[in-house]
C-alpha cells in the first residue's frame, strides 16, 4: 500500500506550509518530473518522503510514521537484535575483522575482542537485504510474510536476490519476525542507522560479542554466498558473450 498523493499533500502542507513544489524539488534534489508523475499517478514513493524530510531537517522516521500504513513506527521500537546488527556489516568489513583478530601485524593478537576494529562502512551493503531477512528468519518467516501481504514467495525471493525489498514488504517482514520495525528500512537503505535510532557503535559491539568461531563461520557463509553469486554472474556474462559472438 503506497503512500497516496492526498496523504502526501496533507503531510507536505503541514511540514512546509509555505514551500512551493519547485522549492521542495530544489532543496530535496528530486526531479520535478518525477514528483509530478508520482502525484499524477496518486502514489508517492517512500523515498520521496524520506528525501524531502531530510531536506527540511525533519526526522524521516517521524515523517514516515505520520502516514497511516507506517503509523506503528511512531511507537518506541525495540532495539535491533545482535543478529540484525551483524547482518548489516558488509562482507568485506567482516573479513577485515577476521584478519585483524587473527594477525598481530594488523593490530590483533588473536584474542576475542582484543583488537582495534577497523571502521565499518554504513548500511546498506551489497547483500544487506538478504542478510537481514536471514538474520530475522525463524524458518517460517517467508510464509508468514506471504500470507500477510499476498506477495508470492517466489516474488519475495526474487526481490531478495536483487538486494531489494519494497518498504511495505520490509515493514511486513519486520512485523512478521517480531523485531524492531526499522530493521528492514535500514537494510534496504531507505533510512540510515542513525535515522532509525540505532545507537552509534552498535554494530561494532555486536561484532565484538561474536566469538572467533562464530565470526569465522559467519564470514565463511558470506564468502560462500558471494562466490556463488559471482560465479553465476560470470556464467551469465559468458553466455551473453557467446550469444553476441554468434548472433550479435
Amino acid at each position, binding site marked *: 500500500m503506497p503512500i497516496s498523493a492526498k496523504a502526501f499533500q496533507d503531510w507536505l502542507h503541514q511540514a512546509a506550509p509555505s514551500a512551493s513544489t519547485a522549492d521542495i524539488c530544489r532543496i530535496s534534489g528530486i526531479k520535478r518530473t518525477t514528483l509530478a508523475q508520482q502525484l499524477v499517478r496518486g502514489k508517492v514513493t517512500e523515498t520521496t518522503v524520506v528525501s524531502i524530510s531530510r531536506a527540511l531537517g525533519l526526522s524521516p522516521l517521524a515523517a514516515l510514521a505520520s502516514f497511516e500504513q507506517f503509523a506503528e513506527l511512531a511507537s518506541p521500537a525495540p532495539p535491533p537484535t545482535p543478529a540484525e546488527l551483524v547482518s548489516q556489516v558488509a562482507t568485506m568489513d567482516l573479513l577485515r575483522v577476521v584478519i585483524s583478530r587473527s594477525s598481530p601485524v594488523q593490530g590483533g593478537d588473536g584474542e576475542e575482542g582484543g583488537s582495534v576494529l577497523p571502521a565499518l562502512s554504513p548500511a546498506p551493503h551489497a547483500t544487506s537485504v538478504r542478510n537481514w531477512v536471514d538474520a530475522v528468519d525463524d524458518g517460517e518467516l517467508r510464509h508468514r510474510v506471504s500470507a500477510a501481504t499476498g506477495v508470492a514467495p517466489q516474488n519475495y525471493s526474487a526481490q531478495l536476490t536483487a538486494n531489494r525489498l519494497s518498504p511495505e514488504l520490509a515493514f511486513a517482514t519486520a512485523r512478521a519476525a517480531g523485531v524492531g520495525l526499522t530493521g528492514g528500512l535500514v537494510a534496504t537503505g531507505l533510512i540510515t542507522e542513525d535515522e532509525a535510532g540505532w545507537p552509534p557503535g552498535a554494530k561494532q559491539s555486536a561484532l565484538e560479542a561474536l566469538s572467533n568461531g562464530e565470526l569465522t563461520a559467519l564470514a565463511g557463509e558470506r564468502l560462500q554466498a558471494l562466490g556463488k553469486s559471482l560465479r553465476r554472474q560470470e556464467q551469465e556474462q559468458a553466455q551473453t558473450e557467446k550469444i553476441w559472438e*554468434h*548472433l550479435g
Partner: protein
Amino acid sequence: MAILQWGTLIICSVVLLLRVPDAIRGRNRMVFGILVIATLCSLLSVPGPYAAIDVALGGWNVTHLILRLLVFAAVLLIGLQVAKGLADARGYRLVAGPPGRWALAASVVAVVAAFSLMDTRGSSAGLLDIADNAGHNAVVAPFYAAAGRTYPGFVSVVLLPALVGTATSHLPRMVRAAAFLTALGAVATAISVPACFAPGAWLLAQQSVNYLAVLGYVLGLCLFWFSRLGTKGGR
C-alpha cells in the same frame, strides 16, 4: 496491395542494411548471409518481382521452388548459428547431425516431388492462382506447401527450448527480448506446417502466420545485434 509481403520485404531490407557495416568489418558475416537470403526470400514473395523473375525463368513457377530451397538454406544457417550462440549442444547435434540431415533431405525430396506433380504453368506468386487442372493441383498444393514448411518447422521445434530458456533467464533484458522474438518466430513457423491444410477461407490467417514467422526470426536477429551495441564487450 500485398501489405504483408511488402512490409516483410521492407523490414528485412532495413535489418539487412543495419548489418552492412558489421559485415564489412568482418563481424558475424554468417548472420549477414542469413539476412541476405531472408531478404531475397521476402523479395520473391512479392507478386511484382516474383512475376518478373519467373517470366525470365520460363513462366512455370520454378521460382517458387527456388524460394522454398532458399528458405531451407536460411533455416539451416539460422539453426546452426542460434544453437551455437545459445550453447545448445543438443540442438546443434539435432540440426547438424543425422536427424537434421535426414529432415533436410526428406524435405527437399518431398518439395521437388510435390512440385513436379503439379501443373505449374502461369507465373503466380505464392502459387495462389495457378490453373486448377481438373482438381489435381488443389489436392497436391497443400502437401507442397506443407513439405516446404516441414524443415523450417523441424528446426524451429529443435531451437525452441533453448530460446525459451534464454528468454526466461537472468541475462540482459535486450538479449531476453531478442530470444523471445526469435521464439515467437519459431512458434509461428511450427504452426505454419498444420496451417497449410486450413480451408481456403483462412488464407489471411495462414499468410499472417507465415510472415509472423519470418518477422520473428529477422527481428529477433536484429535485436540480438542491437543488444550488443553500446556495451563494452560489444566491439
